[in-house]
């Protein structure tokens, strides 16, 4: 039995974390975003060099100079976003970077044999080697990556959120594949947010928080509540501060809204002082629904009514009607990363500071500084570029824009994704305060727990359809999930 032990001690991202993985073991790496999971795995897979600490692989000193060296030594990482060349074939992708050749001339027969053998070991020997991977489903593409790891004689395979973009059937196949890897004596490290999933795949776990290992053990006999409290570092009541609010009259009604492919025939009403949650799996059509309400995506049929008016189908007129949208993707859509905080906060409403098209930058700076204080945005000056801020502070800038806009209806798409727990608590409190002030909030999230804690009502989407809306108290995580994975048309 080959035992692997590693310990690192980087200054901030990781603080003296050590872990041990046995052959055939599956270890779950658990933690909030920013807890140091990726840093730890990047060190292990050679993408980063540790400042302190040492690693050992099969009893030998292990210090990879880069990802390629790590892969040669037997550590392979399967990233959330797959690293495949879409136009190359299955065989070429499996053998990429480890081609069999004589003096640079490819040995096709040997290539095919090794690629085929790797697929065979995963139980997919029938996959056609000539097929370009772009024609495969995401699940099968992932399989090709795993086969690549096997072909390189990997001893440890790291999975980073592997199910986040998979369909249900592909998830089952992945679990089956991981089982095979373990039977072959490979060590598996599995990173995921989903505790249920972790219970199915892994036997032991380690919880990271703020770069330190705060808890570890075997999953059998450990309660979910214990893991969550270690993960979050605070109790549920601290994380979800309650601000009392009561729903009033309807401000937004959606009738039979259909987009290019999603959403399909969605109808609902949103009231003042109400937080309506939208639950569902990735790809269920929640983002598309919100984008069609905001007129960022084209609509095939259906109506959007705000108060008593039907605003025309441009974001500009939707803003004028009182809508505001926080994008799920603050990097490539939500924020102009290279521009300043002040610019990003005021882009959607420069009118208070302009006279005849000319801006009063001083007045604008003061106003933005006020928002920065209110939302606890940590930066010396409103003129700092948004890209210099942490994820949590960037998200606060996106929210500050919505508030500065003075919107009555807030469409928040995954507003807590990828930010630290402290900021999450601030955002939950802010949502409560906004609702208490009579604003209407549509809250899209993949994280059922926060929906259950924060929302007044929750609707579930799957396959582009809005399935059912019920008061939050009538839902549980299990009932949300069972509606979210519904596949009927």
């Amino acid at each position, binding site marked *: 039995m080959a035992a692997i032990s590693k310990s690192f001690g980087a200054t901030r991202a990781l603080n003296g974390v050590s872990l041990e993985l046995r052959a055939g073991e599956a270890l779950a790496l658990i933690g909030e975003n920013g807890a140091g999971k990726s840093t730890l795995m990047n060190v292990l897979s050679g993408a980063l060099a540790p400042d302190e600490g040492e690693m050992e692989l099969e009893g030998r000193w292990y210090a990879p100079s880069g990802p390629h060296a790590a892969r040669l030594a037997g550590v392979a990482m399967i990233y959330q976003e797959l690293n495949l060349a879409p136009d190359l074939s299955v065989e070429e992708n499996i053998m990429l970077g480890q081609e069999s050749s004589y003096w640079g001339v490819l040995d096709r027969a040997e290539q095919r044999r090794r690629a085929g053998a790797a697929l065979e070991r995963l139980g997919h020997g029938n996959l056609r080697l000539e097929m370009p991977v772009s024609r495969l489903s995401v699940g099968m593409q992932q399989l090709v990556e795993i086969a690549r790891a096997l072909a390189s004689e990997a001893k440890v395979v790291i999975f980073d959120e592997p199910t986040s973009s998979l369909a249900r059937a592909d998830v089952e196949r992945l679990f089956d594949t991981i089982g095979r890897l373990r039977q072959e004596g490979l060590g598996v490290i599995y990173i995921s947010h989903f505790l249920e999933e972790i219970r199915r795949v892994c036997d032991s776990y380690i919880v990271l928080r703020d770069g330190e290992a705060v808890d570890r053990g075997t999953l059998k006999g450990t309660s979910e509540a214990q893991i969550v409290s270690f993960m979050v570092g605070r109790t549920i009541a601290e994380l979800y501060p309650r601000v009392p609010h009561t729903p009033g009259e309807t401000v937004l009604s959606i009738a039979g809204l259909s987009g290019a492919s999603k959403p399909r025939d969605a109808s609902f009403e949103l009231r003042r002082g109400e937080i309506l949650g939208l639950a569902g799996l990735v790809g269920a059509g929640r983002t598309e629904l919100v984008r069609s309400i905001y007129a960022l995506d084209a609509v095939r049929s259906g109506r959007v009514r705000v108060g008593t008016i039907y605003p025309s189908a441009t*974001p500009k007129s939707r803003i004028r009607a009182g809508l505001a949208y926080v994008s799920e993707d603050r990097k490539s*859509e939500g924020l102009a990363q*290279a*521009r300043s905080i002040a610019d*990003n906060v005021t*882009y959607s409403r*420069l009118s208070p500071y302009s006279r005849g098209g*000319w*801006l009063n930058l001083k007045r604008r700076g003061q106003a933005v500084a006020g928002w920065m204080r209110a939302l606890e945005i940590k930066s010396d000056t409103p003129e700092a570029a948004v890209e210099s801020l942490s994820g949590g502070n960037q998200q606060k800038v996106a929210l500050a824009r919505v508030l500065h806009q003075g919107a009555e209806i807030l469409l928040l798409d995954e507003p807590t994704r990828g930010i630290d727990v402290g900021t999450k608590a601030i955002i939950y409190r802010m949502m409560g305060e906004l609702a208490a002030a009579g604003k209407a909030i549509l809250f899209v999230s993949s994280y059922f727990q926060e929906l259950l804690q924060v929302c007044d009502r929750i609707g579930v989407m799957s396959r582009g359809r809005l399935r059912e809306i019920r008061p939050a108290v009538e839902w549980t995580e299990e009932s949300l999930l069972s509606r979210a994975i519904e596949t009927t048309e």
Partner: protein
Amino acid sequence: MMKARGTKVWALLASRFGPGLALLLVFCFFAVADAIQPNGGTFLTARNLQAMLISSAPVVMAALGATVVIIAGGIDLSAGTAMSLCATVLAWVLLKGGSIELALVCCLLTGCLAGAANGIMISALDVAPFIVTLGTMTAYLGFAKLVADETTVRPPLESVPQWLNGLAMPSPKPAWLLVAPGVWIMLLMALVLSAVLRYTVFGRHVFALGSNEKTARLCGLNVPALKVAIYTVAGLFIGVAGVYEFAKLKVGNPISGIGLELKAIAAVVIGGASLNGGRGTVLGTLAGALLMQTILSGCTQLGLSNPIQDIILGIMIIAAVTVDQIRQRRMA
């Protein structure tokens, strides 16, 4: 902490005045190199400096327009041929007996229309600016040749007023102007554009669009209209460059502007703008254009041949962008 802040200030200074510092260095280099060579000392004369500014003016004017376009994440390859189209239209109106006022209006209008056409096609057809303006570059050359009937348009000398003739004169009248009126116009344009980019809603929107078009859309900006406005503004600058070009040549030559667009883009890029959009300054562009002119002029004074000048200029462009990228990486 103090030290960290100190380096930050230096980095900020370097990024804001980097192109200006480079200009100063290169300028001093040529001034010294020229002074110590036998029968040198002509570089630092009023006459040479005046000539340098005059020949850089069309590039600067076009480059000012290109600055707006490039900050907004676009590119304009048609600037050169559009400029000669403007100058040719001006000459043609004079030739046909039109008044100078009419000719000027037609010239500027041609520039705006040429720019607006670029913007409309980019927005409406949703084709990359590079492709659209690559197409219009050739098309505008064709239009210019049509107007000129495939020759050079020579309006009668008496139809050109004195002030227009003097626009690009090396030694200005009155003498207290120091440099040609055209150069003053160019500096005034730079000043106004700089203020517009910083202190107007339009300016902020230009940066927003270039930095992230999706964000601009999300914030309710009318992106297609904004693009048309941006290319139209660039067209206006090209129109002014056309007036100046005519004042310099006294004829409408439909091919005189070929290659100007690349010089304009080079000036903007040397000035620290990013071809990915969202970054760039008027001051940088000004420094970039003058830097290129200084190298050309300085090399001539030193007796270096034309091919050598081109090679040095080419290396200069790559070096400027490389230095800028290293600086960016260090800032991040």
